[in-house]
């Protein structure tokens, strides 16, 4: 009799834990959004997330309404994701060129007409950048993102030339990447 009750209790505990685990299961996307929100910057809006591989991700985010734009690099941990580096700057619409923990990243808004983005590195290598889209829920005051993003953990992205094309293959814009990442962390004012 006692044994039966013990088995029953263990059984109930297992069933409840499975139900809880299923109910509160969050995917990587949600965990990354939570991690960036946990920085507690005023009015954070997490944009598109790029999963580089199983253990690394890059996320674009805005804070202060649309005042500042940031890029965060995240590493996967046992239970979630952890920001290893993050950077943000005053939103100007210029290309953002940042060096994070493992990756160098260039990104900025993609005009709605832009369909293709090609990146020519200083060493002559030509590659294409992705256009990342995240539809924001306007009811929640979220912003929709459409950004192009290119990253590398081996190549130097300084002085790269980025060319954006529309659907007819016409050039929309030619963007020169600065020679220093992070707007030059050592730069000072006059």
């Amino acid at each position: 009799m006692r044994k039966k009750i013990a088995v029953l209790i263990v059984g109930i505990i297992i069933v409840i834990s499975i139900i809880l685990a299923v109910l509160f299961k969050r995917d990587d996307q949600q965990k990354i959004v939570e991690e960036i929100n946990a920085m507690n910057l005023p009015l954070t809006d997490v944009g598109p997330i790029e999963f580089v591989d199983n253990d690394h991700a890059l996320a674009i985010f805005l804070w202060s309404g649309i005042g500042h734009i940031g890029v965060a690099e995240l590493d996967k941990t046992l239970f979630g994701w952890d920001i290893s580096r993050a950077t943000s700057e005053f939103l100007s619409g210029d290309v953002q060129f940042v060096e994070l923990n493992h990756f160098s990243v260039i990104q900025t808004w993609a005009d709605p007409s832009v369909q293709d983005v090609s990146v020519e590195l200083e060493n002559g290598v030509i590659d294409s950048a992705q256009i990342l889209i995240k539809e924001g829920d306007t009811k929640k005051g979220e912003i929709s993102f459409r950004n192009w993003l290119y990253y590398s953990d081996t190549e130097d992205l300084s002085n790269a030339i980025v060319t954006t094309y529309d659907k007819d293959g016409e050039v929309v814009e030619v963007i020169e990447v600065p020679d220093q990442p992070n707007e030059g962390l050592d730069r000072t004012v006059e």
Partner: protein
Amino acid sequence: MKKKVIVLGIAIGVIVVGSLIKSYYHQVQEKEYDRIRQIRYYANVSETFKLGSYYYSTNDPVKVRYYPTSYTQYRVERWKVLAELLPYIEYPEALIKENKWEEAVRMLEEDIEAYRDYYSSKEYSEQEVMVHPREVMAFIGDNSRSDNVTELLEEANFED
């Protein structure tokens, strides 16, 4: 009798363990509030001077480094001119040259406090033509100008 002792023992045990857990969570929460305060303060500094921020760590302790953007210069110019025109307001050139913005902004806040005391010590008739302490940050950060600020700037031939 024995039963009573066991029940009492369990009750005390539950209370002790419960309060330990509670005080532990309280500490964790306090720490989290501190972290959030710190991040908010950093955000405010970079917001006021339109600085870029580079976070080496977003967990406790928060580690961030600032760098000026092209919009920072205007704010610095406005700070400099006020330092020349108002008593107690100083422009910490060395700190800013080293991008020690957090310290520089703390100093500005202290200077504004000192200027506020000076302002309060004046007669009402004098205060009317003085720059209000509140306007110092508003002018540096947002270029908002009251009549008194405009007049002061005109006298000093400040151009932006």
